[in-house]
């Protein structure tokens, strides 16, 4: 089969791209930039400046950054420890740390709800230890907990993969040239895992920034993120144009965050190479 003929195999996918990727995006742009009566407007975009929306966007960014940082701080040492394990069952140990990722997203939230409830496991333990009950559920902290729990494996995996690709020779060469463990860590290991860190950050930050289910379930309607506002404008308010406008703004934020992170990734290995 020659070159040209084989290219036609991508035909069905081309139809799919146009019909279900590009056309929907055009729809959202249309709703974002036009009124119900079909006239061009920037009001839908400008609605992000509405105090409620602005506050939600700010909170989304804040929680997204906090969640990403916590994930990074938790995942990096773990990836390093897993990579340094010199045991037969290493791949199994890595598998164990990835396994919760395959459990349904909602069930993972349910589990946290159980732990953090007013009469939940955490408070039962605290009370039995003679300590005060603490209220975490329905606060931003609970939302961050849930996000970290949900997205942590997405940070561990790319960093671990980047770590596993570092050849042992680099580390030995650095020691040989006089570097102690700290120098090796900051000058060799961290720079060589940047692409993994970038992938991890994108994979955690984007869903955290745009989440609405976690904040709805663990925030109890009290933690309003931009995702919740958009969701309500479609599912309750029927304000499709404003919802689309806000979605467009959200999309812009996602693109900006990727541009920023990709600027740090000199090798260009991060980004899409998420797996």
């Amino acid at each position, binding site marked *: 089969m020659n070159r040209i003929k084989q290219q036609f195999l991508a035909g069905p996918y081309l139809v799919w791209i146009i019909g279900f990727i590009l056309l929907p995006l055009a729809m959202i742009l249309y709703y974002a930039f036009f009124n119900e009566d079909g006239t061009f407007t920037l009001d839908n975009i400008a609605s992000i400046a509405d105090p409620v929306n602005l506050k939600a966007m700010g909170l989304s960014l804040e929680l997204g950054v906090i969640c990403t940082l916590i994930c990074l701080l938790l995942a990096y040492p773990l990836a390093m420890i897993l990579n340094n394990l010199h045991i037969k069952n290493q791949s199994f140990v890595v598998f164990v740390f990835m396994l919760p990722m395959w459990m349904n997203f909602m069930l993972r939230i349910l589990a946290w709800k159980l732990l953090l409830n007013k009469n939940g496991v955490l408070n039962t333990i605290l009370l039995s230890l003679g300590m005060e009950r603490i209220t975490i559920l329905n606060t931003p902290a609970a939302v961050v907990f849930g996000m970290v729990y949900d997205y942590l494996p997405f940070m561990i995996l790319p960093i671990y993969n980047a770590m596993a690709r570092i*050849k042992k*020779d*680099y580390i*030995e*060469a*650095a*020691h*040989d*040239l*006089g*570097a*102690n463990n700290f*120098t090796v860590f900051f*000058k*060799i290991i961290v*720079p*060589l895992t*940047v692409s993994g860190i970038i992938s991890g950050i994108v994979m955690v930050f984007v869903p955290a920034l745009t989440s609405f289910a976690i904040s709805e379930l663990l925030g109890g309607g009290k933690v309003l993120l931009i995702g919740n506002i958009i969701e309500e404008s479609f599912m309750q308010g029927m304000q499709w144009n404003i919802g689309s406008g806000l979605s467009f703004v959200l999309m812009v934020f996602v693109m900006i965050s990727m541009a920023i992170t990709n600027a740090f990734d*000199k*090798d260009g290995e991060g980004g899409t190479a998420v797996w």
Partner: protein
Amino acid sequence: MKKKLINFVDISKSYDKQLVLDEFNLYVLENEFVTLLGPSGCGKTTTLRLLGGFETPDKGQIYFDSQDITYLPANERRLNTVFQKYSLFPHMSIAENIAFGLKISKKSKAYIDDKIKYALKLVNLDGFENRSIDSLSGGQQQRIAIARAIVNEPKVLLLDEPLGALDLKMRQSMQYELIRLKEELGITFVYVTHDQEEALTISDTIVVMNQGYIQQIGTPEMIYNEPENAFVADFIGESNIIDATFIQDEVVEILGVKMPCVDKGFGQNTPVDVVIRPEDVELVEPSEGSFEGDVTSLIFKGVHYELDVMANGYEWLVHTTKLVPVGTHVGIKVTPFNIQIMKKPESADEEAVEIDE
């Protein structure tokens, strides 16, 4: 007399219960170019890694400048290693790679810049400071690796098959480069290779190793011309290694023919191995030779022809510049000086030669 710079004393090391080095003893003199030569699995790389500080022995001590460095971490040792390959840091430029060790020892910027220039000149890569690692050929990468090591002014440079990944031409020119470097720097080189030609070309002293034991230590000439056992003879170049009997001093019986030789002291009627280099086998008229036989194969090798001659039940390997067609009936002659007698090893242990001279 030169002083012993490095001294391995009774070193034993095993991986996964497999003994790699057993009661290993070796010293290296100052300013010597020492090559550890042997097949893979002989323990040569382990020896180098012990010296570099990447492994610790199970038993024994390593002394450097008469100081015990057995457990000293790699970064505190005054020696630097050039690795097999892939050891240049891919996220740094060439200048950053070379400056790595100097920055750690907190040298001034001017000093570092000077050193980078000097080192790049030394390895014939002036002006490569800001190139990326990917843009270099394999040979250039290894030269940068050498530059990165020598700017730290180590007393010893360790090289772990540094030319192994290069093609033949590049390897040869790098060998001359290494010899020149050694002369210019005047430091000790410890070199690991499995390539006997390379070892013969570049070394002052060759240590032939097999299965964790030292087989022979000597200059390239000694190793080539007077191998102490069949392993060394076989490993260093192609040879005719023939079972023989040492009749008495200066007489040896090879393939049923009594021949004069120059060796003494192997006893009387002792089984021995005889080594005859293919270039030392002379082809003569059948009547003039000690052995008679037929040419069974002929290959043109450029500088010489390589022949197999079946004579007295042994297939002789012969290098000659004369064209002798297959099927020719020839005589084989060997001058006494070119017959090298070796003791037969009685056990694996005895294959390791005592090195305390």
